[in-house]
């Protein structure tokens, strides 16, 4: 049993232990701590050994035809995402407390741990089947969490929407994955092992036409999971309605699954399939950046706005992926990490605002900076991180992606045009973030209440996330060192 197996099994065991009557918060915290430490160990080990190859391999063959292995391993890319997951999980467990009045604490923590375990399993799986299966593990916990502990009047409708929508997405994805493994398996030996499916360099067994049609369901499936325009309408309401830790985990970690899948599965295995849909993808990702950006501007509620902003930023990651070079993919992974932390941070802060205020309607708030300076400052950090200010990892990733698109671009192609348009999103995100910040924290105090500042218990996770963003923003090579030649490796 490797350290990676441990990381995946610990939350599951903790969930089982809670279910069997253990003390929910203690066990969840213990599991989160353990995972955080193990995740750091994994990360450090990867830094030492280099991220180009798979490490910590383990596998149990479950079926022979088709070959199905319960196997885990990490390379640089999954290492980064594992790190992201353990950090966000830790913070999510730390900040959860406010919603517990509505139901059983056990169910709450079990759901959280299962979501985390699912994400970890999906990121580490070496097998297409379990890559998919682990992600689905989050479906029911999310449904329960939003339904029982959710916020707002629309929580019921929202819980249904996210469940069904993501369910449809996963099923489409499943279809694509089956078509993929069937087509790419070596003759007579069907297998789900991603490594064995990879075509030998230079020659691809599938014609461009076949690749094209297999790529489509993968794109749509992953797209739905990542809230690619126009499949994005589940995301913002769900994040607004979800209890804080779920929003953090879902927006911060789980959503990255689709992007990870693009990089791990769709792009390397179907390069020509991507070429066929490149134009479409560019249009859609511009939809994310520009159209959803505009939608974000006109949101009236803070939680919705943050949710939409998260949808918008997915466009940049897709842009990085569409660049098809190591710079872009490295930037995309870095952005997954950066966005994961920053959106989790925003949701954590938004959640604590929700606990303190009667409403999150932006225009009915004002001047809170005076009475809650800590929250105002940390929210400022989060907002600036999210709009890609230098010093935060988000900026490093954005600029990497932009440079990637122009690598060796002597003249303007569609990718370059799309990138220039996408650049405008930087302005859009500044508009909505600063407007909200100005309206909520600055200006004259609206209303008579002086709500309390951020609770002491919340400060550690919040500061931790800010420190990580700054650290990786000042030294993005910490992350990028693991992904020097992602494109070539995959």
């Amino acid at each position: 049993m490797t350290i990676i197996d441990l990381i995946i099994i610990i939350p599951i065991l903790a969930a089982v232990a809670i279910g069997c009557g253990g003390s929910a918060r203690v066990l969840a915290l213990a599991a989160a701590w353990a995972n955080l430490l193990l995740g750091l160990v994994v990360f450090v080990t990867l830094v030492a050994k280099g991220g180009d190859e798979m490490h910590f391999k383990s596998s149990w063959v479950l079926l022979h035809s088709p070959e199905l292995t319960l196997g885990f391993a990490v390379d640089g890319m999954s290492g980064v995402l594992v790190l992201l997951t353990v950090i966000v999980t830790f913070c999510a467990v730390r900040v959860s407390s406010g919603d517990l009045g509505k139901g059983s604490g056990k169910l709450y923590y079990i759901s959280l741990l299962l979501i985390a375990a699912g994400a970890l399993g999906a990121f580490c799986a070496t097998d297409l089947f379990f890559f998919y299966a682990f992600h689905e593990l989050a479906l029911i916990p999310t449904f329960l969490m939003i339904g029982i502990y959710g916020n707002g009047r629309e929580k019921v409708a929202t819980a249904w929407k996210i469940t069904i929508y993501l369910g449809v997405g996963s099923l489409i994805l499943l279809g694509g994955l089956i078509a993929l493994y069937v087509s790419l398996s070596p003759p007579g030996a069907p297998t789900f092992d991603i490594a064995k499916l990879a075509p030998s360099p230079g020659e691809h067994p599938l014609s461009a036409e076949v690749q094209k049609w297999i790529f489509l369901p993968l794109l749509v499936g992953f797209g739905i999971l990542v809230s690619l325009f126009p499949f994005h309408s589940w995301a913002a309401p769900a994040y607004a309605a979800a209890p804080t830790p779920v929003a953090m985990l879902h927006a911060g970690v789980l959503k990255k699954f689709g992007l990870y899948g693009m990089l791990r599965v769709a792009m390397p295995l179907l390069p020509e399939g991507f070429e066929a849909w490149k134009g479409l993808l560019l249009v859609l990702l511009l939809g994310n950046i520009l159209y959803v950006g505009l939608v974000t501007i006109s949101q009236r509620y803070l939680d919705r706005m943050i949710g939409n902003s998260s949808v918008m930023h997915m466009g940049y990651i897709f842009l990085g992926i569409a660049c098809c070079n190591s710079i872009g993919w490295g930037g995309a992974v870095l952005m997954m990490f950066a966005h994961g932390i920053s959106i989790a941070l925003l949701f954590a802060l938004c959640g604590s605002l929700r606990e303190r205020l009667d409403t999150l309607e932006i225009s009915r708030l004002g001047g809170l900076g005076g009475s809650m300076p800590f929250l105002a400052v940390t929210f400022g950090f989060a907002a600036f991180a999210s709009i890609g200010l230098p010093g935060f990892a988000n900026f490093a990733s954005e600029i990497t992606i932009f440079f990637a698109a122009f690598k060796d671009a002597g003249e303007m192609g569609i990718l370059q045009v799309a990138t220039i348009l996408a650049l405008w999103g930087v302005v859009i995100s500044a508009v909505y973030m600063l407007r909200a910040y100005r309206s909520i924290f600055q200006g004259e105090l609206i209303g008579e209440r002086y709500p309390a500042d951020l609770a002491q218990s919340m400060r550690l996770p919040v500061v931790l996330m800010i420190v990580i963003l700054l650290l990786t923003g000042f030294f993005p090579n910490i992350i990028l060192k693991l992904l020097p030649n992602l494109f070539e490796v995959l």
Partner: protein
Amino acid sequence: MLPYYLEICVVVLGSLMLCMELFAGRRSRAKIAMVGVAGLGVIFALLMFAVCSPGEDLQYWGIYHFDKWAAFYKGLALISTLLVLVMAREFAPVFKHYTSQDEEKSGIGEFYCLPIFVCSGLMWMASAKDLVTIFVSLELVTMGFYVLVAFMRRNVGSLEAGVKYLILGALSTGFLVYGIAWTFGVSGTFNLEELSVVLAGDDIPSAPVMFAFALLIAGIGFKIAVVPFQIWVPDVYQGAAMPVTAYLSVASKAAGFIVFLRVVDPFLAAPSIREPAIYLMVFVTCATLIYGNLAAIAQKNIKRLLAYSSIAHAGFLLMALPALGAAGTIAGPGPESAISFYLAGYLLMTLLCFLVLTVVRVATNGEDLTALEGLGKRSPFLAFAMLVGVASLAGIPLTVGFFGKFFLFNIAIQNAMQNGLWIVVFLAVLGAATGFYYYFKIIRAMYWEGSVSEGEVTGLKVGRLAMLAIILLVVAVFFFGIFPAPLLGLTL
């Protein structure tokens, strides 16, 4: 030990139980059920260890076959009967409420015995490769079910369901016999192996063969609830007693499917009619997928919901059919083993759900979704068990239901890639997505709804045997959801 001794054992067991009932007087009949459970357990052990001879295809008198599938489906029949008995015992209070509080007059002893005889029919069906045998065993099963469905004689729903099942069942029998007659007419044989040889010939007139095929589909399709012959399912499932519903949806369907496969196989194997037969199957599949899944959306009665879900599952199972006879071109488990695996998984998860529902039914006296409200607080374990069952039905990964669906999708997608039958895949995706909705409605009822104040939190009373069964089923659902190989290996 000869395989057909198993059926004899079952019949003997049933007779034994009847004798016990005869001499039981006014005493409790619970022991009879226990004897049944124990006996079935022994017979299952015999099947596993004394009889099973993998790889060998035994034939007796040309009408009784014993191959790996026969063994597999016999196993399914035995286990489901066993669990239904456990369930029936748990259900006894409700049963008595609708018959008589008196042990003797209520007829609960017979209620325990009848499934045993039905089981023998189911086991015989698994071995039948001859239209006559199929007909007889099928009727044996159906007849048992007529009685079981209508058994609660003071319950209007049960009687109504009984009559509906009786009339429609007899109607389907008529079509089946008529179909058998026509099959005999075009081929001159009842034996399915001979039939496939005859049908493979060139000079077979395709129109009457297809007519016969259509009639057979109607007759057997009725048992496995495929559209457009599903019409009885919701009413009968709703009206029948909980264990009977479970039995119908699991055992009857599983046995129906093996028969269906065996009957359809020669037709699909015949080159001259393969094409139209597949065309017909695809239509039936699509209709079943749509109907089962969509009509389930608005259901409020759990049994009715599960009835539609049972139709939907039939639709998923049918997806594998076009691949029949095209073996070797499919990566992964072939259609027969995928279907068998799915049915086994279906048995586990459905019986799990029905066991929980039985307990809830006894406690709350309700069969609507509202009866489940607050279960998450009243009895976290039962709610969890139900959650597992429902998740598996919906096809959430790491449960056996997902693997089942996965193998079927695997086949359907490969079919589509080869033949362009994408409509089936599309509808299956739509159906599975709809499934998330109506299955999750159950989860919703258990966890979101209903406020139980602290004082009311009283665990539901669960019999020890039922509890054991529930735990085992939960474990099995997870186990086979992660390690499908042991179960799949039995079907390959």
